[in-house]
């Protein structure tokens, strides 16, 4: 239950991405290598400081076995 609360609290894009990456057991560098990006770019996306292109979003979603909606869909409240 505590876990569910923790997860539902992480609704923003950056937190969902970080959570999906750690669930998959990947470091930022490993994810960056998998999606042909730099570690800094992954860090910036996770911190909400960089808007990736659709191509990079797709590569990240595929690498983490998630859909675009799972990772990048924004509810009005998130924006």
């Amino acid at each position, binding site marked *: 239950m505590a876990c569910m609360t923790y997860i539902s609290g992480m609704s923003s894009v950056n937190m969902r991405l970080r959570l999906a990456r750690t669930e998959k057991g990947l470091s930022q560098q490993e994810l960056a290598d998998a999606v*042909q*990006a*730099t570690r*800094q*770019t992954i860090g*910036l996306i996770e911190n909400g400081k*960089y808007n990736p292109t659709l*191509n*990079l979003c797709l590569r990240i979603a595929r690498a983490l076995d998630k859909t675009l909606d799972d990772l990048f869909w924004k509810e009005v409240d998130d924006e």
Partner: protein
Amino acid sequence: MSRTPVPLDERNIDSIRKVCTVMYGLTMVLLALTVFYRQFALGQATGEFEDIAVILTSNVIVGLGALLYFGGVALPRFGPRALAAAYLAFVIVGFGFTVFKYTVLLDQPMSAGALWSSFLTVATICALFTGFYVLAAYLGVRRIEKQAR
């Protein structure tokens, strides 16, 4: 990531493009200031900075044309009235600057004949520029619409 010795991803490339754009704009402004400084502060003859002026002019002309072509700005869709207004604005600014340059900055009063002659020159050059930009924009839009189909 690109296959370069330095690993670059889309963010790096985007940042590089932004910096290059700003630096290019700054270079053009500084070149223009250099031309003005040489002409009006140092009083140099036109021939002494013609090379800079040619680089500056060709870059601005080709640069704006390339922006319209590759950017695919739908300039022709503004309609003939808007284009005529833009042309008129070009002529007024160009002619105004020419008169200001000779009468105020160079202190060479212009005769009626010289005024008419410079007006015709400015009007012709502006017509060529406007025509070139409209053509570049038209071809750019056509190219993008072709790709989008």
